[in-house]
């Protein structure tokens, strides 16, 4: 078994709360190391209060088990994950599903522009900083009159 195969398998694990993106799209798998049938995975949580973190770790272990190996998941609670780690493919999948993807941090710091995932308009306003999960805010698009969920930039 190679690390590439493990990465490909992890790309099939849906995020427990936003299943349109995989754990690889989300950027939470920091490294994969395969040695003698054991797979060491470094996992960086998204939001610390996210109740899906344990489900993600279990899914990683289960997926490695399906490949016939044993997983060793190391949860790394450092500052290495930010929304900038979400892949370009992941951002596009989020947008297609009606979640406005997080703007890159550098862009977000300089502008308060938030684009509607349905019509692309920037005529949107904040309805609530907080939403149904720690990672989402609620916005409203004045152009197409759709409320939508905005993935927070952190």
């Amino acid at each position, binding site marked *: 078994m190679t690390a590439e195969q493990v990465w490909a398998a992890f790309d099939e694990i849906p995020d427990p709360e936003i299943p349109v993106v995989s754990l690889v799209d989300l950027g939470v798998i920091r490294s994969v190391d395969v040695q003698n049938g054991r797979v060491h995975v470094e996992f960086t949580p998204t939001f610390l*209060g996210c109740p899906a973190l344990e489900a993600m770790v279990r899914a990683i272990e289960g997926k490695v088990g399906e490949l016939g190996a044993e997983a060793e998941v190391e949860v790394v609670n450092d500052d290495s994950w930010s929304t900038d780690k979400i892949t370009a493919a992941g951002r596009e999948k989020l947008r297609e599903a009606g979640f406005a993807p997080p703007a890159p941090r550098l862009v977000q710091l300089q502008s308060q522009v938030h684009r509607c995932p349905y019509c692309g308009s920037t005529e949107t306003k904040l309805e609530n900083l*907080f939403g149904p999960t*720690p990672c989402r805010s609620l916005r409203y698009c004045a152009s197409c009159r759709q409320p939508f969920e905005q993935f927070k930039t952190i």
Partner: protein
Amino acid sequence: MNELLLGLADDELVIGWRDSEWTGIAPMLEEDVAFSSIAQNEIGHARAVYQLLSDDADALAFDRALDDYRCAPLVELCLLDWAHAIARRWLYEVADEIRITALMGELPLAAKINREEAYHRMHAEMWHERLRDEPRFRTAVAELWPYALGVLPPEQRDALSARVGLPIVDAFERGTHTDELAPLWEEMTVVRRSAPAGAQW
């Protein structure tokens, strides 16, 4: 360092619990969502810090005797008046920012926590802007001010005083508890205390 981190984790656990008391009864639906989400984040931060300090975060969080908690009296108060609840959120976030940013150099987890706290600060500042000249809010801030000072060690209090615009006074210090912690401790720990030995979580 461990004593400081335990205090931080206990603050986050207890304020998370107190903030969650607004779930379902906040004056606007948006605030039901906001307080619930903030509470969830704060308890998540507590868990991550407990995990640094112990292999069994739940045991550290819920198996201690009341007197062994190191939270600041500010977070213990049951505040079911909106002006007071918002005043505490604002004071706590200002104090917490001073404390967390001071830790970021030596503790990578503090930098991660700080990313999420940015949204708590935006929420607190939005309400502070809205209510700052309202007498009820000003009274609440004044009442809670000695408690807010107690969140920080003495060397960080000047920064808090400058941000809040109130002078240093005698603080309600960490290490002593208000009467309001005991009923909360009963509630927080009842599940673990009543579970049979060997229960799996």
